């Protein structure tokens, strides 16, 4: 099959090239690689035949299960007498990116392996690994390409930051857009934006904030006046985007800063987890008002985002302590208030936030420390979420975040998947509503069980 063009991207597992005899990054011994290469060739031919029949099967958005399914069948057909070796199955050989995706997916979730392994790890197969940025299907705007790269390499993190970046990118896209003849902007622009959005989703699963913002954008586009000249329509849309960012994020943050700041009293010891942009604003704001308090920043691998928050707070002159999550039990008795941010809140009152937040909230509840979640209303999702498991995202393997001390060799500390080991780094977890004392939004302070009243309150405002 014709090799699909591949971008010289370095996926988290290291550079990939087309050498069939290259050892898979799992560090397989070279003795078996020749035989494996032969097997691989055969498998490739099988797969090519199958793929040709399957017109344009999913390239990027394929959940790993789907991609994994055709391969075991191919493998089983090809060499019936390879029961146990199949989990050493080829690492990306990268002619077709499809195989790359499939193999990567297989690395993440074992699909054909020994029955024992299969039972244990298939349950994690629904977690999508961040896939390498693939070939752009269709006409993707360079801003979107750049943004997707930034997302996949975790250069932009945080629900608010991602949403603002996405909306700003869409503004550029809209300005560069030209309505084709015999088409209206309000109808065609949406179809034009859809592949761009899919490209972003392929880089990294969409956050609830991005989803809500894009839904609002689509609503605005469809409501756009047909008679308006094109440039005016585009300007109006960009203005609406600006208003959305301003009203739902910037101003909301200011209201939250004030409301939550009122809950901070002199002498408080405030605990926060990882890095939330809203909590950062609240703490800086309260400090600027002259309240005397100290902050404990709790952090955890792999992202170690707390370090950035720590440097910002410390340079503002706030007294800070920095600990890692396992040390939480030792200091929780000193804490008077826990302030955390959120990725999204759900209608049953559960808060979906950086992995580790649930532990902090549960520990605080046990010690009767109030837990306050600072969250804008645009993070509200109508869905009900009951556990951290059904929906989550895995961090890529390898040392993407440089979270090891520089004195030790990175290689020695970085774990990688192999035959008997699978690394899982979920990025989010769910804090149940009974561990939360209050949720501070721009429409008021709401108890977690009444989060469903947010749309009512919003309806009054908007």
């Amino acid at each position, binding site marked *: 099959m014709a090799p699909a063009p591949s971008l010289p991207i370095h996926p988290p597992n290291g550079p990939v090239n087309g050498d069939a005899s290259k050892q898979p990054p799992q560090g397989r011994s070279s003795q078996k690689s020749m035989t494996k290469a032969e097997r691989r060739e055969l498998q490739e031919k099988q797969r090519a035949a199958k793929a040709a029949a399957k017109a344009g099967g999913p390239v990027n958005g394929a959940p790993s299960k789907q991609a994994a399914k055709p391969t075991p069948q191919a493998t089983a057909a090809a060499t019936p007498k390879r029961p146990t070796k199949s989990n050493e199955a080829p690492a990306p050989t990268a002619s077709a990116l499809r195989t790359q995706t499939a193999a990567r997916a297989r690395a993440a979730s074992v699909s054909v392996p020994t029955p024992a392994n299969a039972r244990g790890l298939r349950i994690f197969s629904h977690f999508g690994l961040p896939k390498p940025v693939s070939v752009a299907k269709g006409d993707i705007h360079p801003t979107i390409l750049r943004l997707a790269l930034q997302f996949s390499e975790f250069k932009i993190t945080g629900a608010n930051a991602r949403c603002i970046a996405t909306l700003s990118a869409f503004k550029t896209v809209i300005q560069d857009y030209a309505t084709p003849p015999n088409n209206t902007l309000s109808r065609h622009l949406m179809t034009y934006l859809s592949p761009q959005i899919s490209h972003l989703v392929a880089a990294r699963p969409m956050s609830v904030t991005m989803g809500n913002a894009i839904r609002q954008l689509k609503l605005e586009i469809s409501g756009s006046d047909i008679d308006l000249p094109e440039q005016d329509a585009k300007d109006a849309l960009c203005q609406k985007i600006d208003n959305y960012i301003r009203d739902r994020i910037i101003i909301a943050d200011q209201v939250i800063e004030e409301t939550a700041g009122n*809950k901070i009293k002199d002498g408080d010891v405030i605990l926060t987890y990882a890095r939330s942009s809203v909590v950062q604003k609240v703490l800086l704001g309260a400090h600027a008002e002259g309240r005397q308090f100290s902050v404990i920043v709790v952090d955890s691998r792999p992202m170690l985002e707390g370090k950035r928050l720590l440097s910002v707070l410390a340079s503002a002159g706030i007294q800070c302590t920095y600990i890692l999550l396992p040390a939480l039990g030792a200091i929780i008795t000193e804490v008077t*208030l826990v302030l955390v941010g959120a990725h999204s809140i759900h209608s049953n009152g559960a808060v979906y936030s950086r992995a580790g937040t649930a532990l902090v909230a549960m520990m605080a509840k046990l010690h*009767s420390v*109030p837990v*306050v979640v600072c969250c804008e209303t645009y993070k509200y999702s109508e869905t009900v979420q009951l556990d951290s498991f059904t929906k989550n995202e895995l961090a890529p393997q390898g040392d993407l975040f440089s979270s090891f001390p520089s004195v030790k060799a990175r290689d020695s500390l970085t774990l990688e998947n192999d035959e008997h080991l699978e690394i899982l780094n979920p990025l989010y977890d769910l804090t149940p509503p*009974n561990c939360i*004392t*209050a949720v501070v939004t721009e*429409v*008021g*302070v*709401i*108890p977690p*069980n*009444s989060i*469903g*009243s947010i749309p*009512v*309150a919003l309806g*009054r*405002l908007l």
Partner: protein
Amino acid sequence: MCIECLKLPPLHRHCDLPAKIVIMASEASSSKGEFDIYQTYRKILDDEEMSPPLAAILSLSQLMVESNAGTMFELVKELHDGAEELKRHTTNPISLNAGCELFIAFVTLFPHESDSFAELKTELVKQGQKYAKEAISYRNKIAELMLDFIKDDSVILTHSYSRVVMRALLHAHKTKRISVYVTEARPRGLGVKTHEVLTAVGIPCTVVLDSAVAYVMDKVDFVLVGSEAVVESGGLINAVGSNQMAIIAKAAHKPFYALAESYKFHRLFPLSQYDLPTHNPSILSFPSLPPRPFVTPPTTSGVSPPIAKSGIDESLNVTPTSSSERSMSAEMTAKNPDVDYTRPDLISLVFSDVGILTPEAISQYLVAMFAG
């Protein structure tokens, strides 16, 4: 105000407020050259049936009558100032606040249909007085709602003295047999007042010590308390001892019911006991004693230290009442809170004139009332 009052256009029915209240209110202002809102407030509170939030609403209405404001903005500002003035005079402003905020929200959201500002003002005042009059009847509504939850031969535990609980119990007594335990509710000892009232109508009633609540809880069918305020989290602010009672009731699996008129719903959100506006650093503070002399061990001479010891905080002095009973001195009592906060997960139901609500529903009601 109930939501209906806010949504409907003003009713042009003549409001017949009890005459004495109107007279009292205007007396307070005519006795001095200037309108003194606090005096008005106190005079209104002289009426037994009045509670602080309603008195606040009436005082603010009276303020509007006396005011010279020419625009809505000025009027609202004057109302805010009046509310601040009232709050300054009392150490426990929570229920007062609830009434003030409710009235100011009503004034702000009132549809401005009248042609002249004076007409609008008159209308607002009338509405305020009408509301206060209706609100007195809320207690009857609550008593009626409560009736179905009281079975024959119920044993009820209540705390301190609450007008709405009294109304409910007296109403139930007409058709059912009930017996009541009431806590003493120190330091004010209002539980004894409850005992007097109930015994006078023939309800068997016994006063229990505040410390005997856990002892008596297993004998009780349910717990019934009044409220100073019901807050946004769905929790309850009431005389100190209610939280204790709620925790014990939860541990003994007994329902805990709170009775609250809708004007007591407040947008406050305390995160803990110490986040209440009534909490200040002197409450539950330790006395600052001079550093102990290094050498001599303290002499153990029974419970009370010798009065002759100098330099020790006076609160250690004990004022003996009888030979076997001691009581706290005024200074000791001052270090204790007046009200406490009961968490929403400890409360089974809140009975109010807008219906029987779960604690979660309180927040939704408040959002619907006040948002925007």
